[in-house]
């Protein structure tokens, strides 16, 4: 079962620079295990030691956020596209600067 997985720039060091890789699995958890066998260490950047999705990682199946589809238990089918992205709020400049300023005050 082939599922296309789109890899963000900051994680391409695990995929030899590949923007997209293929994997298989009936759930997101299965897929990430399959990928980790080929791209060692990738899973560890996406899943916390407690077994949940990393807070600053968003994963989408066919453009829908998996956190609303069962998270790591989200079901996958042949031909699905999985997109991995770091969490950045709209206005990337604004939040970074604002968060920094706020931190500076505390």
């Amino acid at each position: 079962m082939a599922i296309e997985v789109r890899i963000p720039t900051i994680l391409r060091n695990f995929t030899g620079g590949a923007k997209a890789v293929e994997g298989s699995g009936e759930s997101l958890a299965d897929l990430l295990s399959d990928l980790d066998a080929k791209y060692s260490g990738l899973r560890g950047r996406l899943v916390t030691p407690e077994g949940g999705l990393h807070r600053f990682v968003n994963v989408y199946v066919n453009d829908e956020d998996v956190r609303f589809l069962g998270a790591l238990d989200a079901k996958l089918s042949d031909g699905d596209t999985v997109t991995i992205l770091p969490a950045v709020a709209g206005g990337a400049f604004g939040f970074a600067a604002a968060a920094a300023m706020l931190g500076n005050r505390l």
Partner: protein
Amino acid sequence: MTRYESLLDACGNTPLVGLPRLSPVVPEGAPPVRLWAKLEDRNPTGSVKDRAALFMVRAAEAAGRLRPGDTILEPTSGNTGISLAMVAKLRGYRLVCVMPENVSTERVQLLRMYGAEIIFSPAAGGSNQAVATAKQIAAEHPDWVMLFQYGNEANARAHYETTGPELLRDLPTITHFVGGLGTTGTLMGTGRYLREKVEGIEIVAAEPRYGELVYGLRNIDEGYVPELYDASVLSRRFSVGTRDAVLRTRQLVEVEGIFVGFSTGAVLHAALAVAHEAVKAGRRADVAFIVADGGWKYLSTGAYGGTLAEAEDALEGQLWA
């Protein structure tokens, strides 16, 4: 009543308009599926951010954080800056915006016209440089007040107290609410209100998926989730790419005559997805979505003309929502 004592009083109460041509066609005898656009570009400065700006300033006044003549500092090159500049002018404050020097000239002109002062952060160095600049300004001016829209509860409350009640008043049969996800204020406030009042309502987020340059973090731990965000308010969350957002933005003006910014195109894309699902399932649906702003400020991107591929190239690396 459409007479107001001042521009600030004219904030909100925006029209909700049906989209009879864009709403999906349902089979004969099937329940109707209708799309409705809430025109937030009809606010005083032309965007949904007027609501949040007004509520954040009033909340800071009530808390004694803002006194006449004070300076408000906000790092933004977007609609929030323009809204805050207008509110600050009318309430007697000075506004300083920090923004990268590569922001479009329209933005700079608009902000200055509304009376904001601008401190540019060098574009080279990206967010690290922006952070450094911001820290330096904050250290030099400890008396300046930052409203911080990503964590300010008054941002979400503006929508809990105004946008949500307006939607329910105008569309008591609402089944879905779709909004763009940035600070998350619109979705959190409106979503909480509608969940309390409408059983089974779906709150749907549309999140812009930018070109790769925008995600130029060094590592995952530099990511950010706004303090206002509470996933339990949402039913679903869609990531919408540049091409789909541009396609829907053009479709909205071509088919329904509504000229919007690209973030609204992303929102419409998600609204159409849930509307078509309802048609398939044979369910009635009244899908209301937010038009965050008009398209005027984005004309210079060139993304309203040419092919979709050209538009995608034009927006590559830009924060188009």
